[in-house]
């Protein structure tokens, strides 16, 4: 099967398929507070299907060794599986070459890698970095650190009351000092899907490279680096059915080649003397030390699993879940949805009038319902909407409309208690 066929699988997720999918996730059978778990915190971290768990067990019981080093059987096997995982990620992103895929600890480390490897060499005093008002702290703080070190300036794309970026204002931010654009593909706090293809094209007209934070996009829709044409793309394994401790930085080869290494150590060198070190070629240049081998291989298995269902089908089904949840929550008096962009991924942030989100979260938990409450590591978004925190339900393809009904019942119960 070609990559096109895999990613473009048109199979819609119907009731029969949904039951099969749910049976793949052992944790979904868990009871919490004596009730069946209703897991609606997928934007924070998703769960792992048995196939990925089995892959981890197989690796640890039959394949583990350090990679890129010894000539023995296990080392060669582990190296081959690790590099195959890299190729799986390459196909998942439709990257041109596997050397454009760098394994990191997660999205945060991937962004920090770009800040250190690219930013510190190519962004200087008085230069401007454009970010959006929707960013997660992971795509704000590294750039703030760089700006402080170099005397560069951060410029922020504002948004409207729906949580959509203002494209005219975005375009007006560009000038001769603009050196970088760091932007979320999908907002973790509000679910807004940004028009990134259009924004990347505009930045490129000004010769400005673009990093997309794809942590909330990668699990939910097919991705195509050739179509998006971004220069860097970052995401995490644990938000897409893989384990924690593994993430990916995609970068265009010609940019990665001219960047400085992020960390020094083993594997990232060709030769070392006390006088001089010659760095390895990409991707090894950016993978100092022993990488999370098991986690990378498990991420490869998670990609296989998602491809088996089809990202296009996942996107369609999650849209159906989001539309249903939006319709049901909007019908509740005293509940306000925060983030009402026309294009949204499976995130529903809301507040219940007169009830703090933490009380909402605690009471829902007593019915086995897991949501996130807090500022979602996006305090500027909270400030923009004048709330200290929100309650956030976020969906995955293994969630059901019945679970959304339980959320609605839970919200009603909260309102009753606080009335």
């Amino acid at each position, binding site marked *: 099967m070609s990559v096109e066929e895999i990613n473009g699988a048109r199979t819609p997720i119907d009731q029969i398929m949904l039951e099969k999918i749910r049976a793949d996730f052992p944790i979904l059978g868990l009871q919490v507070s004596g009730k069946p778990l209703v897991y609606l915190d997928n934007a924070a971290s998703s769960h792992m299907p048995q196939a990925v768990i089995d892959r981890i067990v197989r690796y640890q019981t039959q394949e583990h060794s350090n990679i890129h080093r010894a000539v023995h059987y296990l080392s060669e096997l582990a190296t081959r599986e690790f590099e195959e995982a890299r190729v799986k990620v390459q196909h998942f992103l439709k990257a041109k070459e596997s050397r454009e895929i760098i394994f990191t600890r997660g999205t945060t480390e991937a962004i920090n890698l770009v800040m250190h490897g690219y930013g510190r060499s190519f962004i200087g005093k008085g230069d401007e970095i454009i970010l959006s008002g929707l960013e997660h702290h992971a795509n704000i703080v590294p750039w703030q650190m760089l700006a402080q070190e170099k005397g560069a300036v951060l410029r922020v794309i504002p948004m409207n009351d729906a949580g959509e970026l203002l494209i005219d204002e975005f375009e007006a931010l560009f000038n001769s000092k603009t050196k970088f654009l760091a932007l979320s593909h999908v907002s973790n706090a509000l679910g807004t899907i940004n028009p990134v293809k259009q924004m990347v094209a505009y930045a490129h007209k000004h010769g400005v490279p673009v990093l997309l934070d794809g942590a909330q996009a990668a699990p939910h829709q097919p991705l195509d680096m050739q179509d998006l044409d971004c220069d860097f793309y970052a995401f995490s394994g644990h938000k897409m059915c893989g384990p924690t401790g593994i993430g990916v930085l995609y970068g265009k080869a010609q940019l990665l080649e001219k960047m400085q290494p992020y960390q020094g150590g083993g594997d990232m060198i060709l030769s070392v003397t006390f006088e001089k070190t010659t760095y390895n070629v990409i991707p090894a240049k950016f993978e100092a030390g022993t990488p999370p081998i098991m986690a990378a291989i498990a991420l490869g298995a998670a990609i296989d699993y998602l491809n088996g269902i089809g990202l296009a089908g996942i996107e369609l089904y999650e849209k159906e879940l989001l539309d249903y949840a939006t319709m049901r929550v909007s019908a509740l008096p005293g509940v306000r949805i925060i983030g009402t962009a026309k294009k949204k991924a499976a995130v529903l942030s809301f507040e219940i009038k007169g009830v703090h989100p933490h009380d909402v979260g*605690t009471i829902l938990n007593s019915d086995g319902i897991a949501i996130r409450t807090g500022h979602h590591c996006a305090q500027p978004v909270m400030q923009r909407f004048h709330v200290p925190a929100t309650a956030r339900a976020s969906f995955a393809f293994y969630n059901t409309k019945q679970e959304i009904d339980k959320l609605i019942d839970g919200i009603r119960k909260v309102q009753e208690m606080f009335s």
Partner: protein
Amino acid sequence: MTDMRQLYQEVILDHNRKPRNFGSILGANRHAEGHNPLCGDHIKLSMNLLDDRIETIAFEGEGCAICKASASMMTGAVKGKSVRDAETLVEEFRGMATGTFDPDNQNSHLGRLKIFAGVKDLPSRVKCAILPWHTLHAALHAGCSVSTEGEADPAPGTTIGE
């Protein structure tokens, strides 16, 4: 705790809706502020200490029901008390919320404050209940800013940017 009504009792919900001693005291001789950055809970405490006794006390701020009710009932409980007796309550309340002090112990002074005993089963909410009491402790000791995030006062942070 599976039945939330054990924690969210009518008394707590009522103090959340109509917090007592809410506001600030003009000319107060003691002030302290407490906040939990993670939740956004924020309490400002003002009081008048006279001859080692809490003459008046008031609080204002934003927070969840647990935090607000705890602050409201705390102000009622310590008004008129000596610094020493107030400190005993701070210690006992903290112990109860973290599970190291039995509020039904015969030496307990907690009285009605026992209704917060249930938070000990909700580790993520312990800090909400304790925040007003930490703030009171700070106010009694000349006043400063406190946080119960992670149940330890963080080291002074480094500020990036403006």
